[in-house]
């Protein structure tokens, strides 16, 4: 009788275990975000090559008084990626004036002294805002007029896109 009771108890335990087949498990992840103040990007100065002559290339360095300049404001000390959309020609009506050999420089202060050089392109260049949320960017380049370049005023657009990262 005792043996029968022990067997019955064992079988009851087994059935109770198999009846509880549902098992729960959990895992957690975080949801994170960093709030920044909005960024502003302003074209502060035109890249101006001035007078150029047929067949004579002319370069404007980032340190020149007529280099292009952008001013940015944003979240203090935040990292920012800079990308450029650059023309391959300046145009005057149907006439093209090739432009290239782009140069760039960034500084958290409004001075090219000690600025960080880079090559403007469609690929991102990493930079950062100053502790007061400021950043300046200078752009230079070279125009290459043909020997028979038509006279006229040639223009183009340099676009800077900045994004936090």
């Amino acid at each position: 009788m005792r043996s029968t009771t022990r067997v019955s108890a064992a079988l009851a335990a087994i059935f109770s275990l198999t009846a509880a087949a549902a098992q729960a498990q959990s895992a957690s992840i975080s949801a994170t975000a960093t709030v920044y103040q909005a960024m502003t990007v302003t074209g502060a100065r035109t890249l101006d090559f001035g007078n150029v002559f047929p067949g004579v290339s002319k370069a404007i360095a980032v340190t020149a008084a007529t280099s292009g300049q952008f001013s940015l404001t944003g979240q203090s000390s935040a990292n920012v990626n800079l990308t450029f959309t650059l023309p391959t020609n300046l145009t005057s009506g149907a006439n093209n004036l090739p432009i290239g050999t782009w140069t760039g420089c960034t500084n958290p202060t409004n001075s090219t002294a000690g600025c960080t050089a880079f090559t403007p392109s469609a690929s991102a260049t990493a930079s950062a805002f100053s502790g007061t949320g400021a950043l300046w960017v200078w752009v230079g380049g070279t125009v290459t007029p043909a020997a028979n370049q038509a006279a006229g005023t040639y223009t183009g657009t340099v676009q800077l896109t900045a994004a936090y990262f």
Partner: protein
Amino acid sequence: MRRCVLLTAFALLAVVRALTGQTQVTAIRDLAFGAVIRGVQTTVAPSDPIKSGRLYVRYKIGGQVQVAFTLPTRLNRVAGGGNMPITFASTDAIAQGTAGSSQPVTFDPNNPITFTLQTSADFYINLGGRVTPAANQATGAYQGTVVLTCTFF
């Protein structure tokens, strides 16, 4: 006869233990919105390979798994002093088995759903969402917790 019954009982116990050991729920990646701008709603798609949240679930082919999220409604500023709404749309979760023939299943993370594992014994769940910082939202890092509970049948 008695000995046979006892041996059978122990064998059954051993089988039950092995089944429960097959389950797994593992966190892989946080849902990371990154930099968000005051006043600008920011969305992370569940298909985002970097920013979406990701978890791994393993059971057995032929098994059923009910998945249920516990989702935050706000992210709290880590340094204190504010919070920010976070919401999840009905298409903000994707389940994808690891078998080559598995098709992704988009589902609503706000409601539990049960999957029957037909071709893969394991699958990944990706989670997207959106945050809505106020125009005067305090800057800084914000955080919340997402819990995935799986019930295995």
